[in-house]
């Protein structure tokens, strides 16, 4: 009995993934109708993230280390967080737009279709422009990895860091986008936590007061995206004196954030009443 239930869930999950792929492919072809824009969007997004790192590099032209962290170490922090963000963003980038869908009534149309709402919303207006960030982040991360003293356990921590980081960002983006079920014009409020969280992870977190670090650990858990696991990869003791166990806790944080986001999403959808337009 249990086996068939799990089997059903897996088949269902794969089915959703397939639908997601189909909708995404549709949008890629649609975007290609404006080829110049398509190419420029990809290059532009790569450029934005690329220049981001140039900014860090320029900072280090004036510094030997940032609160004890060298350029290689900051590059590891930056690359891993950026990669996690790129993965989450490519998969669910359009979830931020549910406010628009509510306003225009498109969400109502989506609800009538036999595909889970979250799958439709995430795949809608799927864009490959984030490939730029993905490429750039991989290069920086790859470069920074050459300075890590690898052990088998560190490889495991690194892989789980990227997956967990993706889950944390997935959770933050979906969770905070749900605000729009209650108010439709405060989208920017979410940016403080989603993009703000992403920006925070570019720096060693010991530049912030300890209270902020505690908040970034237990409230908006972006410290698990890269800070704690990277401390382990770099073999450093925590400069803020947080428990050692946190360096291995990223998967827990990832799963919890994602679960919380899905709960918020469900209650948001239940709360939703159409604008009637």
């Amino acid at each position, binding site marked *: 009995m249990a086996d068939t239930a799990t089997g059903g869930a897996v088949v269902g999950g794969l089915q959703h993934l397939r639908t997601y792929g189909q909708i995404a492919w549709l949008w890629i072809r649609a975007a290609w109708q*404006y080829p*110049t*824009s398509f*190419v420029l969007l990809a290059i532009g997004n790569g450029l934005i993230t690329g220049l981001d790192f140039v900014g860090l590099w320029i*900072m280090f032209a004036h510094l030997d280390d*940032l609160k004890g962290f060298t350029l290689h170490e900051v590059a590891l922090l930056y690359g891993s967080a950026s990669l996690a963000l790129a993965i989450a963003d490519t998969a669910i980038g359009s979830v931020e737009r549910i406010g628009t869908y509510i306003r225009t009534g498109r969400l109502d149309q989506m609800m009538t279709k036999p595909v889970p709402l979250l799958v439709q919303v995430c795949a809608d207006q799927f864009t490959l*422009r984030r490939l730029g960030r993905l490429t750039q982040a991989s290069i920086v991360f790859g470069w920074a990895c050459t300075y890590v003293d690898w052990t088998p356990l560190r490889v495991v921590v690194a892989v789980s860091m990227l997956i967990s980081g993706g889950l944390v960002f997935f959770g933050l983006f979906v969770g905070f986008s749900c605000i729009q079920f209650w108010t439709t*014009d405060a989208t920017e409020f979410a940016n403080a936590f989603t993009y703000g969280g992403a920006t925070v992870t570019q720096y060693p977190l010991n530049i912030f007061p300890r209270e902020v670090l505690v908040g970034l650990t237990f409230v908006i858990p972006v410290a698990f995206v890269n800070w704690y696991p990277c401390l382990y990869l770099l073999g450093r003791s925590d400069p803020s004196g947080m428990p050692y166990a946190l360096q291995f806790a990223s998967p827990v944080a990832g799963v919890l954030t994602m679960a919380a986001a899905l709960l918020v999403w469900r209650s948001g959808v239940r709360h939703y009443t159409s604008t009637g337009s």
Partner: protein
Amino acid sequence: MLHVAIATRAFRRYSTYRAATLAGIFTNSVFGIIYSYAYLALWDANPTAGGYDAQDAVTYVWLGQALLMTIALWGGGTTDDLAERIRTGDVAIDLYRPVGLVGWYLASDLGRAAYHLLTRGFGPTLIGVLVFHIALPSSVVNAFAFAVSLVLAVVVSFAIRFLVASTAFWLLDQSGVKVMSGAFAIFFSGMMLPLVLFPGWLGTVANVLPWASYVQVPADIWLGKHTGSGLLTALGFQVFWAVVLLATCQGVLRLATRKVVVQGG
């Protein structure tokens, strides 16, 4: 008078979205706090980096957050309406009107900028003053020069955004060019990192490009880095780019109306 009316309408249009404005101020402030700590760490390690001290650096952060929306650094503003009207073909009606297109949209963008200055500009500045004790302009002359510089910054930014929107005459869709232009703006305006930190030739190039008018020039005037004739040179630099770019806007528009077939609606 007409242009004043256009500006007033744009001001009112943007002021409808109160919750969005509050959310925006909150977000700008969060980013202000993040960057303040990052810059404090940098200037803690190198107290004279780029000729700024720690207070200059933190002031710079909050000015940047305050200017972000006022100068529409990421693109957008009223020129987005223009791009959409070009895409749909509605621009044909605009071209009929007995008013120049550039003047119309400039007036409307100045109205928008005034609203964003009073809200998204003033809000973060206040937080900066209260929480991070940022520096205020040292003299009345500096404060006045800053105000002039701010208007020029909006005009330069408008002209660039107008040119970006005009690409829709040929490409039909401005979004690709807009993202590219936003990337350059964020980097070369000094928004991401003050241009005073840019080393060697990169610093030289960044300081003569029009984007320097966005954040670096007004911020330096606020911080009192330009005095006497230096102040006039700084403002002259902005005037130069404003004139050159607005003239280019007119030229491009003339080219577009002559060469391009407007799309049917």
